[in-house]
């Protein structure tokens, strides 16, 4: 399964939910915001949100800025 995470195409071996992806790719899930195919998914729904081939996922968080 191929999904695009933050603009980069990534091959995933098994079907996984959003919660697994966030744990795999982010140091911590606190203050991580997930947008799947243009829709914001609240953290409480990550566990029930499964990813499918061709999905586009954005994982964003806060950084310093003026």
């Amino acid at each position, binding site marked *: 399964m191929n999904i695009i995470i933050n603009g980069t195409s990534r091959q995933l071996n098994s079907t996984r939910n959003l919660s697994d992806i966030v744990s795999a790719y*982010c140091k911590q899930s606190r203050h991580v*915001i997930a947008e799947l195919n243009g829709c914001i998914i609240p953290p409480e729904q990550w566990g029930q949100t499964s990813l499918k081939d061709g999905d586009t996922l954005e*994982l964003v968080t*806060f950084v*310093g800025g*003026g």
Partner: protein
Amino acid sequence: MTDTPLVIAGKSFSSRFLLGTGKFKNKKDLTDSIVSSKSEIVTVALRRIDLERHEENILEYIPAHVTLLTNTSGARNAREAVRIARLAKASGCGNWVKIEVINDSKYLLPDNQETIKAAEILSAEGFVVLPYISPDLYAARALVKAGAAAVMPLGSFIGSNQGLKTKEFIRVLINEIDLPIIVDAGIGTPSQAAQAMEIGAEAVLANTAVATAQNPAVLARAFALAIEAGRLGFLSGLPLQLSLSQASSPLTGFLYNDIPAN
């Protein structure tokens, strides 16, 4: 003389200094600067997580009592600004947003028209909207109509430390717009911040100057003091500037009777 608090969207703040959190060399400088600035509103930005480099979360370094103001930097139009604001709100870190729409990579000037469009949409969705603009009376009036909570005109080019180049245009906004005017961008020294406050700005935002100083926490404190001094100057009802000298001491009752020779 005691000052009234800065009030934005019904929330009171005793500090009139907003601090940006970009460009700090390290997180200790950032935390120390927020503390010494006594700022109660700090700006942050939103970016894609770097999946290869596990970076630290900046929010861990911002004291909890501070109001977060997320900017929409990176947005090139109203649609992108709205998207960034919605993402920020989804984090649960509040609904205060500094609308920043820039689509010119040379001067980095804000696009007032797109900013107004974004302000209309986000205010209607319940965001507390603080738009960053080039100081323009018509744009500011449109933002009042759009439901903005404050207006943030630039003092000079962002990150330039050039100070209050737009002073007369900001003065127009201060006189005509019934919202807090917060001078943002280009303020490089405490004296420039004081100048903005002396003409009646409600607050000043600084970032680059503090973050890139050799000792950021010291400059943050200096800014805070200058902003307070400038504010008191404004409240005092500053006297007019004159084009000629006027003696500070009385010109009568001298110890001699003859007029001093030239």
